[in-house]
């Protein structure tokens, strides 16, 4: 093998690859990578070339190998894998002669109904052709396929179900989720799950709750599998109808680090939580480094003289005292009112993660009253429990449970103001929507005078700031910085800037 020109700045792009790969495939890969970049994945030129090199080493007919070759070279974050998979499915599920990637691809031609019907018919023991299946027969087939966990059969059922129930029409401008919903509604998968469990119970005889749980998981897994098949089928048909680029565009979803805290789904939230931990470690590492690389302390006279003795009394080597490393002290003051509820949940997780990294973290939550919740997070193993306690036990409501920053800050200043010292960094998290109450921004100013830093993190887009009842501008003039933190990427940016 000759040296491959993987050096950066070669700039040759796809030209650097010998034309063993067909032009069509090169072009397809190029489009694929462009789409990955459009979806937000950072694919560098080096990685691009690596990918082109890698696919030469895998049997091109093997879809899975092909996928792993591309994945290993192009996707370097686990969080991005899902996005990669989606784009891959869109780009390489096509038929069409010039795009033949996988000959053994199970996807036959769309119109090849007889074949599907026969396959399914055979497995069922002599049913009619696919077109003539009654809904009952299809349901029975679905049940059987799930019962046996027969992947091939599930594929067939998925295809039939989409054809029958999704009601897809060419050129209709609706998304895949609409078709998915229509298909699933007709299949009644929950009912099927119950039936499966019953069936299992009958055949197995005795059935403890524990067994039941295991079987439920097993069948749920199979049903998820089926659902994936259905999604894939719908996607495939949509791609055939609309073309690759358009389809890839509609399927594009924000990467985990770009997901808005305020509008995150449950699943996205779970991913975010996992991502917080590395981030706080980074934060801790940065602060640590600053402490370690800090300036040296004042001259240590005694040690200097002692050291000078080995040079005959000449103080060649001045000795310094070790600097007193300051331990960062962090106060987190978080709004947990309804308007920022989603963000607040995230905030609490962040607080929990931070308190694991720093020795002195105190956390406060407020709505119109304010309460310290540091103790809830101490020595707690289950964060959800702590969050639950914060939401139920903390005394944060003063009058009506609508945000009142002014009053909350007043309580904070009165009760805890004396604890703020020159080593304290205060992080205030909230949207500063004050319901037209008094701002009392002088308190923030006082805080700034006493504390080392005061930062304001706002989960709202910057363009919304100071509109309506938002008075973040009034507060932030007394802060060392106000940051828009709507997603993980921005939070990371804040951490990087912080130290």
């Amino acid at each position, binding site marked *: 093998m000759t040296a491959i020109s993987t050096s950066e700045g070669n700039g040759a792009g796809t030209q650097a690859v010998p034309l063993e790969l067909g032009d069509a495939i090169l072009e397809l890969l190029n489009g694929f990578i462009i789409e990955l970049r459009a979806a937000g994945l950072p694919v560098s030129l080096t990685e691009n070339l690596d990918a082109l090199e890698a696919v030469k080493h895998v049997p091109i007919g093997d879809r899975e*190998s092909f996928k792993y070759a591309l994945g*290993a*070279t192009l996707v370097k974050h686990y969080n991005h894998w899902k996005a990669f998979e989606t784009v891959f499915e869109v780009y390489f599920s096509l038929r069409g002669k010039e795009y033949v990637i996988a000959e053994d691809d199970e996807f036959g031609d769309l119109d090849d109904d007889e074949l599907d019907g026969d396959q399914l018919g055979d497995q069922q023991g002599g049913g009619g052709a696919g077109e003539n299946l009654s809904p009952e027969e299809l349901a029975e087939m679905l049940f059987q396929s799930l019962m046996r966990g027969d992947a091939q059969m599930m594929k067939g059922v998925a295809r039939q179900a989409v054809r029958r129930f999704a009601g897809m029409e060419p050129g209709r401008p609706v998304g895949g989720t609409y078709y998915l919903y229509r298909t699933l509604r007709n299949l009644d998968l929950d009912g099927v799950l119950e039936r499966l469990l019953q069936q299992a119970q009958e055949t197995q005889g005795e059935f403890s*709750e524990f067994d039941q749980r*295991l079987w*439920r998981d097993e069948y*749920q897994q199979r049903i998820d599998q089926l659902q994936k098949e259905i999604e894939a089928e719908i996607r495939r048909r949509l791609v055939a109808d609309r073309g690759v680029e358009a389809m890839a565009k509609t399927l594009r979803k924000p990467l985990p680090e770009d997901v808005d805290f305020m509008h995150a789904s449950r699943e996205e939230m779970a991913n975010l939580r996992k991502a917080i*931990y*590395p981030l706080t470690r980074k934060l801790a590492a940065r602060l640590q480094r600053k402490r370690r690389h800090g300036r040296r302390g004042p001259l240590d006279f005694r040690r200097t003289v002692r050291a000078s003795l080995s040079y005959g009394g000449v103080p060649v080597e001045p000795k310094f005292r070790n600097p007193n490393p300051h331990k960062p002290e962090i106060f987190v003051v978080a709004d947990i009112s309804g308007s920022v509820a989603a963000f607040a949940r995230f905030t609490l997780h962040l607080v929990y993660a931070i308190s694991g990294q720093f020795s002195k973290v105190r956390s406060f939550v407020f709505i119109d009253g304010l309460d310290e919740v540091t103790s809830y997070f101490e020595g707690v193993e*289950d964060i959800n429990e702590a969050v639950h306690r914060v939401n139920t036990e903390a005394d944060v409501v003063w009058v009506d449970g609508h945000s009142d920053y002014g009053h909350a800050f007043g309580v904070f200043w009165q009760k805890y103001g004396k604890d703020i010292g020159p080593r304290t960094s205060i992080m205030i998290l909230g949207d500063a929507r004050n319901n037209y109450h008094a701002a009392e921004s002088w308190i923030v100013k006082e805080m700034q005078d006493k504390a080392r830093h005061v930062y304001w993190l706002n989960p709202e887009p910057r363009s919304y700031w100071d509109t309506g009842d938002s008075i973040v501008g009034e507060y932030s003039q007394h802060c060392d910085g106000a940051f828009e933190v709507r997603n993980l990427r921005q939070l990371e940016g804040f951490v990087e800037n912080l130290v």
Partner: protein
Amino acid sequence: MSFRFKDVASLKDGLQRVDYLSDEGIAGVVYLADRLQKPVLVEGPAGTGKTQLAKSVSEVLGTRLIRLQCYEGLDEAKALYEWNYKKQLLRIQSDGSEGHDWDGLSDDIFSDEFLLTRPLLEAISATDPVVLLIDEVDRVEVETEALLLEILSDYQVSIPELGTIEASQIPLVFLTSNNTRELSEALKRRCLYLHVDYPDLEREKEIVLTKVPEITENLADQVARVVRSIRQIELKKAPSVSETIDWARTLVLLGVEKIEEQTASDTLNILLKYQSDIKKVAKELVTADGVSV
């Protein structure tokens, strides 16, 4: 240029012979690493066999495994090379009387003889094909990562006093990370990326059967199922593969033939390491109807 592996299938078989059950993805990426001469960055939850992969590959190849365990505070002197200061000193002192000229002496004391090789340099300068394992690379600071870059992309080490030492053979390099922190882009760009997750049901069962030969197939199947169900619950630390194996061993020792509720909850402490997790799982596993995904 000869390659280590003929094809993916043979690599997979080889790994299986040394009791490492890979899947298409794992074997495929290792195979590519050999073909493209690139390091592999293996990431994934703790206890999914990342380190074992490197060990097994070296076993398959019948080559030496050079291991660099990373930790906070790892530096050049421990990762790359160090001058043997004491020996240099001895050399200077023993020479003092003979009146060598300075140039000769300094050339002499900065030569191979006085160089202490550390894992990275050792892997580069080895003449036999080796497998280099850089374990838990996420533990070093971001700045220390830079130490690795030269070796990973060019397979060479530059020593100011000696010049550049180039590899006489390209080692197969594995880096593992538990993802406690984001690795730098520069490092990632130089590697192939492999994410090793918990195995699926079938593979986990196979692993249990391989590692605990005395277990019955039926029990292995149950073990895998229970573990899968447990992993679906949100826990502080989900059971890893090695814990699954430990659990299977325990069950065999206890003479269990079929896992019942009671045996499961009695032995949970082998699968789970946090009291809160154990409590949670014990509660959830027995109330089947309470949970629907």
